[in-house]
């Protein structure tokens, strides 16, 4: 599913050794996660967790090393092959990134529309998903009118509506109270049980303690723990 070998990331895309280049935010990252695996992604703020998630979401390409996602070599892949790959990856952002001009329903339906899912089937799936995350009553509302927890659930619904093979979450419980955080963890474990590979970045050690599992540990851009 995921195999990284000596991956480095430098924003700005400067080649290694070039003068005036920005420092590497990720260095010599090597790890692998099998299909259906679950990993915590741990580390202090600034360790590179979000950058690694961006790499795994194909929002950036590695500036060195090899990264293979679902059989696709990211560094060498043709650009027009990447949208289809991204549609198989769900991403829950810390700041939700819901589109403010769309309703909750249209936000959640967006990945299906990008995948050209027929409208009747799409409406049934989105309606069911909104019911599952408890947002049926607010489906016609704009995200700005929702509470932080409701926005988080809408973002999660948008990430999982396509039944992704890989689900990435960046501090997904950061804006949730304990009850909602526990519900979210149940949802993520349920997705994982159904076969989705899940990687959750957090610095909430309590959450990890309550849901123990294998972890990738980053520190100053380097992988210092895997397992």
């Amino acid at each position, binding site marked *: 599913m995921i195999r990284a070998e000596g991956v480095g990331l430098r924003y700005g895309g400067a080649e290694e050794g070039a003068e005036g280049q920005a420092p590497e935010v990720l260095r010599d990252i090597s790890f692998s996660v099998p299909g259906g695996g679950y990993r915590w992604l741990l580390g202090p703020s600034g360790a590179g967790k979000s950058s690694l998630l961006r790499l795994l979401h194909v929002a*950036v390409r590695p500036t060195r090393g090899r990264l293979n996602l679902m059989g696709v070599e990211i560094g060498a892949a043709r650009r027009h092959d990447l*949208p289809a790959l991204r549609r198989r990856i769900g991403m829950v952002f810390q700041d939700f990134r819901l589109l403010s*001009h769309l309703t909750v329903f249209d936000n959640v339906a967006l990945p299906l529309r990008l995948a050209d899912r027929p409208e009747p089937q799409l409406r049934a799936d989105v309606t069911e998903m909104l019911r599952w995350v408890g947002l049926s009553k607010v489906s016609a509302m704009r995200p700005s009118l929702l509470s932080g927890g409701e926005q988080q659930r809408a973002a999660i619904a948008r990430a999982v509506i396509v039944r992704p093979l890989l689900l990435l979450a960046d501090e997904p419980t950061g804006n949730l109270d304990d009850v909602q955080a526990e519900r979210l963890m149940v949802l993520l474990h349920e997705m994982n049980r159904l076969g989705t590979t899940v990687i959750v970045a957090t610095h909430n050690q309590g959450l990890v303690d309550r849901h123990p599992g294998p972890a990738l540990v980053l520190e100053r851009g380097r992988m210092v723990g895997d397992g």
Partner: protein
Amino acid sequence: MARVRTPRLDALGLRHVPGERILPLIVAAMAFLAALALAGAQGAADLGRHWQQGAAATLTIQVPRPGAPAPAAEPAGSASPGAEGAAAVTRRDRVLALLREAEGIATVRPLGDAELSDLLRPWLGASAEQLALPLPAVIAVTTAGEGPDLAALAARLDAAAPGTLTESHGQWVRRLALLAGSLRACALAALALVTGVAAAVIVVATRAALASRREVVETLHGLGASDGYVAGRFAGRASQAAALGGVAGLLAALPVVVVLATLAAPFVSAVPVDTGMPTAGDLLHTLLRLPPALLWSLPALPLSAAAIGYVAAQGAVRAWLRHLP
């Protein structure tokens, strides 16, 4: 059975882009100028063609000392009177007779004294006819078919009345052709310039829209939207705005084009036309009788604007998206 509503989702929120309503106005101004340029190119072509045809089909003959006796005619093979009668034939009449006998001549018309005075008045003033100037006879000739052999005709006329000038207007024809061609080239250059400016405006507007929707575009990109999807949404909006502006510009330009075409009609018509101020009937008549090339190209303006908008926006968005992986 209830119908399933399948709205065209404005996923990028382009309806909320600031300045969205400015683009049709700018394109309308461009379309207005483009319509005038098209009409100008067509008008220059028509005027040039008409002037060239008119000038090419006429000759002007100047006979100095027209009242003087013509020299004796050649003794053999000549249709001229004999030596005794020659003294009674003036140089003007000899030239007229030769012109009327020549092949390729349709009409021969000597200008009267009043017409000569009219020609001289701009240079010599109102007293032109009172001056005791030795004026030549001026003969206006229209040619038929391919016209006469000008060199042979000029030689014969010069032999019959030495000093006679035959002006074929060839130089004027060449200059008129050059002038008409230059006017047309200027109009087409203006059209190309307007097209380029319109494309540049659409590119700038699209980049501004991209800047204001950057986060939305990046979010959609992360959700798996292809370049074609994103560029298509921007290009669709730009195309609509440009088409709307094109229609508005065309509607604004049409009355101006019709008035100009009506004013130009007397100068391109093959038959004499009343050169007074045009009436409403004249304008309607002109609208219905605009040159076919113009009739086809004017309605194509909104379509061209839409196509330019689509292509320019596609190019701008796709170039911008290259910054994303």
